[in-house]
């Protein structure tokens, strides 16, 4: 019986094993390239609402520092931001005021009172500015007046 030499056996091994391996590697490469095309990485703005029906409790909770009401309204196709009774038409001014408030007392609860026709980009922008100012609690108001605000619906 003739036994193949070492070099002959190595040649057979290379031919029979390496080709499928390369095939599989290239197919996997194409697979993951196709899977990653068009995938846009999204971020999240989390809100952890307090469980409840959104009705303010009968017993008022004492808040020594009060709270900050931010009202968003729409006028002439522009969003108008009112912070604690003062209008700020420019977003830079809104950011500066919120930053100053956050540095002073970030524990003050912020309540967003949003008009129905305000676009979500501006809602998210105000929330984004509040987070950047390190406010601990941002809530959504359920109605127009301060008395109808939802109980803690904050970050």
């Amino acid at each position, binding site marked *: 019986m003739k036994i193949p030499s070492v070099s002959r056996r190595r040649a057979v091994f290379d031919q*029979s094993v390496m080709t499928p391996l390369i095939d599989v590697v290239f197919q996997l490469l194409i697979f993951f390239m196709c899977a990653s095309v068009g995938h846009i990485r999204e971020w999240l703005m989390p809100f952890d609402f307090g469980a409840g029906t959104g009705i303010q409790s009968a017993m008022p909770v004492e808040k020594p520092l009060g709270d900050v009401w931010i009202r968003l309204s729409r006028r002439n196709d522009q969003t108008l931001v009112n912070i604690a009774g003062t209008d700020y038409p420019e977003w830079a001014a809104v950011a500066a005021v919120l930053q100053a408030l956050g540095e002073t007392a970030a524990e003050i609860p912020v309540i967003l009172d949003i008009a129905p026709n305000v676009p979500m980009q501006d809602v998210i922008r105000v929330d984004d500015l509040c987070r950047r100012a390190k406010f601990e609690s941002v809530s959504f108001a359920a109605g127009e007046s301060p008395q109808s605000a939802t109980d803690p619906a904050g970050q």
Partner: protein
Amino acid sequence: MKLPTAHRTPLEMNLTPLIDVVFLLNIFFLVAAYYIRHEQVDPVQLPLAQEGVEDVESSARVVVTVTANGILTLGSNVVSVDEAVQRVAEVHAEHPDGAEFRLRCDQLTEYSAVEPLLLGAVEHGVTKVRFSVLPK
């Protein structure tokens, strides 16, 4: 006449074409599913934000897309506000940790289209609400 012997060429099973075909089918279904999904779901331009957080895997998640026109889609199906809230409430009741309610709103979506969803979710005890954004 010289007859060929039976054991001149040993029979070998070549798996290479099989692997090729399987992976090509895999790629085909992947690409097909991608295009089908993007045809059915209305595209939304998500709001931009700087303080967003990374996506965290949740055991129970309901994703509702709100287009600029206020149309709600849940899993490529157009739904009403009540149907979306009902779905969130069902998932929330099925999972002890509670459901995550994820809202994918367009930048131009008015708050009036989102507020009923928030109120309905809170009324059913859903506490985890997430707005999808794109990093600015």
